[in-house]
């Protein structure tokens, strides 16, 4: 790597010439290597963005982007007039903030616990088992949840009934449903989320722990004063990225787990876009919603990043 960055002939060049060879030409091989990824981003990330133009059009699928009529901000006005709009934004924010509060710390705690294990085979197999839920599709999880938590014949409620209590409406009452929704999220993602923290943990110098041992620090003290500060940059980066997604919500989880009884909470931006865009063919309205969502997401990232920097972390740019 180093050798390529500063090619050998450079050393023999006179001072004047070396100054000319600064900038792009100096490391042109590196820039050449970058061309492919940059082309990829332009082609697949920026070019398709022209489609966002339909948010400002009275879009007809048969006339296409070029043929449809431009109507300015009409779609946004209509969107902000809809009472559902505020409901789905509220639900999205609510579900995501709750997820942040409960699902975000889960992998950190789990990683700390795993880190303390010294029996290697147990640690490895525990990790593997913890990763597994991540690979199960939400459709299947939806089925599992239904089998476990339905009022009649659900596994959990069978036990509750056997103990002589009434069924708990896990899936049909919105607050109970919220618990199930959050719990399922943790179950699904906590194990997989530990990977990044475990990787960061390996970067912490052993010397620090040895020094702490000498000073007589216990396990908890070491965790608090060495391990956690050691992975703090990673935690901050992850948090910023989560905040960037605060307006974005996966489609499958709320769609699969939701039902008509809990629509007060389960109708979120992604399901709304699906219903308005794909089912009712109001593509312009759905795109306007998507664009709005992206803008708010950007604002959140910028704010989170500047806060992180103020607290002395590096942020993500």
């Amino acid at each position, binding site marked *: 790597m180093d050798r390529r960055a500063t090619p050998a002939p450079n050393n023999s060049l006179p001072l004047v010439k070396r100054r000319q060879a600064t900038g792009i030409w100096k490391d042109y091989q590196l820039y050449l290597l970058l061309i492919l990824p940059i082309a990829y*981003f332009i082609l*697949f*990330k920026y070019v*398709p963005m022209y489609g966002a133009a339909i948010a400002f059009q009275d879009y*007809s*699928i*048969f*006339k*296409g982007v070029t043929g449809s009529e431009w109507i300015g901000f009409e779609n946004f006005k209509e969107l902000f007039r809809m*009472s*559902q709009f505020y409901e789905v934004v509220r639900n999205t924010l609510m579900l995501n903030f709750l997820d942040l509060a409960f699902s975000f710390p889960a992998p950190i705690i789990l990683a700390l616990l795993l880190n303390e294990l010294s029996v290697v085979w147990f640690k490895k197999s525990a990790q593997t088992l913890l990763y597994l839920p991540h690979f199960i599709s939400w459709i299947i999880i939806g089925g599992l949840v*239904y089998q476990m938590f*339905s*009022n*009649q*014949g659900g596994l959990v409620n069978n036990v509750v009934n056997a103990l002589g209590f009434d069924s708990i409406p896990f*899936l*049909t009452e919105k607050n109970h449903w919220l618990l199930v929704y959050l719990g399922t999220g943790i179950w699904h993602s906590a194990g997989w989320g530990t990977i*990044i923290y475990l*990787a*960061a943990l390996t*970067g912490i*110098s052993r010397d620090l722990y040895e020094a702490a041992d000498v000073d007589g620090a216990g396990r908890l003290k070491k965790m608090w004063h060495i391990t956690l500060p050691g992975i703090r*940059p*990673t935690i901050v*980066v992850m948090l910023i*990225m989560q905040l960037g997604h605060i307006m974005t919500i996966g489609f499958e989880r709320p769609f699969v787990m939701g*039902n*008509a*009884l809990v*629509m007060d909470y389960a109708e979120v931006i992604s399901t709304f876009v*699906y*219903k*308005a865009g*794909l*089912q*009712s*063919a*109001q*593509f312009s309205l759905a795109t306007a919603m998507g664009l709005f969502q992206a803008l708010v997401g950007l604002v959140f990232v910028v704010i989170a990043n500047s806060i992180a920097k103020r607290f002395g972390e*590096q942020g*993500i740019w």
Partner: protein
Amino acid sequence: MQVKLKKWSATWIAVMLLATLLSACSGSNGNNNATDSASPESTSGASKEKVTLKVEVFDRGNAPAGAGPVTDNFWTKWIQENFGDPNNIKLEFVPVPRNQEVDKLNVLMATGDAPDLVFTYDMNTIYNYVKDDGLTDLTSHIENAPNLKQFLGDDVLNYGVFNGKQYTIPAKRPLQFTQSTYIRKDWLDKLGLPVPTTTEQFYETLKAFKEKDPGQTGGKVIPYDFSAINGTSITTPFVLVNSFVKKMTDEQFYTLTTSSHIPEITKPGYKEGVLYLNKLNQEGLINPDFALDKDGKQFESDIANGIVGSFTALAAHQNLMSPGKVFDTLKQNVPGAEYIAIDPFTDEEGKTPKSIYDPIGMHIMIPKTSKHAAEAIKYLDWMAQEDVLFTLQNGMEGEHYTLENEFPKAIATDEAKKTFYNNNDIALIANGKDFGSTDKNIEAAAYAFPGYEEVAQQSIRNALKDGYTMPRFDRPIEAEIKYGNTLKEKAYETIVKSVLAKPDQFDKIFDGGVAEYMKLGGQAIQDERLAAYREMEK
């Protein structure tokens, strides 16, 4: 050094993560491009070359083991041999999941890669396509299809005329029935109860099922079952609810009716119907988890397991009565179990009204992007020939059916099932078989269900009794196109919540739901419908 390393690793992780996220997103883009670029290659070419005709086909996810997928099976091969090869056409079937047909169709149309023949039952979707000028005008094409024209007749074809042009080809529906109610005959016999003929008697029967548990289900009995009422499964409680609707003037009827299966929660009396379901729920007579059964599969398995006393579902339906389906499974699980068709939901006049279909099935369309309108019409015209249609609907004599009283009777062997399923979906132009008269049609329809001829016949007769069709306007209701899906969701939500509400909350929830429904566009639809009605009456 330590700090620098930390800095590096943090940024590196961030970059890696972003990259994986981005690549995950763009993966789907790549796929679309691939299919886009593949299509023109296969469809264009000199006229002498083989033409590829793409035809939409419903995928109900019910292919028997060993039958092959809906896109490649006994029948797609038969069509290729008998229609494709002689005409130098290669047929390609494009599968669309049955309960997502509208979404998938919209996507196909938007990409400009729609099959040459598409279809839907959803009127709003059709209005949208007509409005946006996305369909091929078939007025002149249809003149080249004498068989098709003769088979459908002007009445049926008229349903496909919009703004004076033939934009769709409606399938013919000889029998307009929708739903019937079914009840366990062996349970009635066991308890010595009569077949219920009024709502009151029906209620008493449900109570008896619950209290005496004639099926010895250990308390699991569901006296009256239905699944989530989201318009995609075969069962709803709407016949019961609609029987509470009061007599209306013509003006009210035209104004308060909705199209595209939006529950008509604003009709007078509808609330009482929902309240009745609420009462049934309070007394444990319906399935409290119905809203969770979004695809109706739990419903079918509950029936097959013999814990359902009665239910209302599409009459003479393949999911229930076809060989190897729900009723067959029930018989295996519970020897002696038997359902009969009943018609108990009486209105204020003692009639049993229910809404029935128009005399047409789905609308078949050719997208404007299609370059093969002529071939597509040719395909439909070929299908409209009497012997072809008969074969498509009934299979091969001796292999899939035998003639009994001149009606084809299905053969129910495993071997026959493998090469004969979902043929209703392949024979696009007909929704049911036509033998010339209602009685004959009912008899013939029932022969498709060996072992269940009687219950099939009775269910169709019940479903037709006191039936009424939806009022028709001469133009689409714009507000309904715009708000239709939103309102459908709202109406379903209102009904589900009201049914499961505590009694003292019922009024608040139902009235609140209706108020919101009106605000979300219900009012706009009613205003437009009223205006259209008055215009028509002038």
